[in-house]
């Protein structure tokens, strides 16, 4: 007993640091597996889809599900299963790209203004508030309407529209971190702003960024689906889920499958994304504000 601290201080043991993923709740793990399955289906689409997605009259129109057509056929006799499988590519790519775009630009912007504060922060926040006070749908319709609907454009548009939301959340997270003493300590050491943002701040808002990314993924998928449904997204004959629902709904009485399959695909995907979001949110602490819509 030479050292008091040995006697007096209770010292937390280094709990074998588990990977973040392992600490996710079960529901989020299941959701993660579902998302992996989606990714696999999307990547392997050419291999697993029984028919080419856009080939018409592989069967007669509106065939009910059968061994040949597991999910039946649509009005052009196309295989609904194959189209649904291919549709996962479009939506995953677009949703992921949009979310990635908003999380990276919004994240950087949020960190920067959150850290710098002052007049820059005031001006930037007002600008963001103003942009957010225009309902995103107006922007989306204007942009997609003016430049022509194409998958990359829709993804970029939806991504950019979420930038203010992400920036706001990340800014708030940054502010609470930026007021902590380790940031002050870094400043006192004379670290550059860039170094502080990247080395000190970034690791501490990673959780927020991950949560925001997954929130934005769910949001983007729904938004892109809605645009597709309104005819402002992917264009026929693309196997796009929103578009498929729109195309199929006129003939829903003849066959429900052309609507039900992409709808279910979308619902399950977004549910999985949301459950996953929920899990990472619990893991990394609350990053509210944005909501999922």
């Amino acid at each position, binding site marked *: 007993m030479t050292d008091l601290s040995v006697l007096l201080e209770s010292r937390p043991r280094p709990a074998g640091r588990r990977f973040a993923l392992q600490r996710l709740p079960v*529901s989020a793990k299941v959701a993660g597996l579902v998302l992996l399955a989606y990714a696999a289906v999307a990547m392997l689409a050419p291999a697993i889809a029984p028919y080419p997605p856009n080939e018409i009259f592989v069967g007669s129109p509106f065939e009910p599900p059968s061994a040949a057509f597991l999910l039946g056929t649509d009005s052009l006799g196309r295989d609904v299963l194959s189209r649904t499988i291919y549709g996962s590519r479009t939506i995953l790519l677009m949703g992921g790209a949009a979310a990635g775009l908003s999380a990276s630009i919004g994240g950087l912007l949020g960190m920067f203004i959150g850290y710098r504060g002052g007049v820059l922060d005031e001006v930037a926040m007002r600008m963001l*508030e*103003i942009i957010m006070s225009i309902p995103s749908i107006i922007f989306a319709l204007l942009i997609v309407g*003016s430049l022509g609907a194409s998958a990359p454009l829709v993804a970029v548009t939806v991504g950019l529209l979420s930038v203010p939301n992400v920036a706001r959340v990340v800014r708030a997270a940054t502010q609470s971190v930026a007021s902590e003493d380790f940031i002050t300590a870094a400043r006192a050491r004379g670290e550059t702003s860039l170094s502080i943002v990247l080395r000190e701040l970034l690791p501490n808002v990673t959780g927020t960024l991950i949560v925001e990314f997954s929130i934005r993924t769910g949001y983007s998928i729904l938004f892109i689906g809605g645009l597709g449904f309104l005819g402002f997204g992917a264009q026929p004959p693309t196997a796009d889920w929103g578009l498929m629902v729109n195309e199929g709904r006129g003939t829903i009485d003849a066959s429900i499958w052309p609507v039900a399959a992409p709808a279910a695909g979308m619902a399950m995907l977004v549910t999985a994304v949301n459950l996953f979001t929920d899990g990472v949110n619990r893991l990394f602490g609350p990053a509210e504000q944005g909501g999922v819509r």
Partner: protein
Amino acid sequence: MRVAPIPRLIVTRLALSVLSLFVVSLIVFSAVELLPGDTAERILGREATKESLAALRTQLRLSDPAPERYARWLGGIVQGDFGRSLVADRPVFSYIAGYLGRTLLLGGLALLIHIPLSIGLGLLAAARPDGASDLALSAAVLIGMSIPEFVVGIFLIMLLANDLQLFPPLALIDQAKSFGDVIHMLALPVITLNFAMTAYVVRQTRNSMIEVLKSDYVRMASLRGLSPLRVLFVHALPNALSPAINAIALNASWLVGGIVVVEVVFNYPGLGRLLVESIRFHDVPMIQGAALALSAAYIAVNLVADIATLLLNPKLRTRTA
């Protein structure tokens, strides 16, 4: 600014919103300018001839430079004149009022159901955190939220209107003869919207309620021997509502813009559809009017939410001693 009492909040916000709306109009105008094609082409469509196009362009003064047209429009706005729709050749204001009214009616009814429903469910979930009811409820609302609203709408029409014939499939509110009819007609869109909105507020209410139930003051309230009901409704609930209100405000502002898909599915003549139509026709004054109305509604919703938050939170309402 949040420490400011309510009147100052309102004044500041109103001043700011004027600026916001100005920027909105500028952005929207520029965006429309970028659209290919022009109003005359859109109006005349396939039947257009060179002569009729030229005549219509002159009539609508489309060949004036863009800044001049914007300045003319802005000049009108300052005097309370929203201009005339290029396509309808009627004052924009008369449209905005009606369409906005209907959008607000639908959105309002949706919120009327939404607020008690989602807060109630949130409290239910918070009653036993991670219990069976909490998990089931969280899962249910999460799935509800994850289905795109157009899918929900389509299937609700199939199920509740076509098969069970409980509600009319379309929201043709002009056919309503009483307020009861209106509610009956709007039932499906209202349900559809609630599908989308519920989860977030339930989650917020649940989380903040759980948080508040763990707080010192709730603990102390029950340690002072107060009845559980009093602890719940007087001590816990008012303090748990702020995040729920923010979530509701987010939903409400989502409603303002996101309602367009639901309007399309249920054939409801709301502002969102007017906007989509106007974008199709490049009807600049109408787009401007609709965009401003939507933005103003958005700003108002957020202002109301902030005031509610202020009212609920004495810390923000009064100055610190």
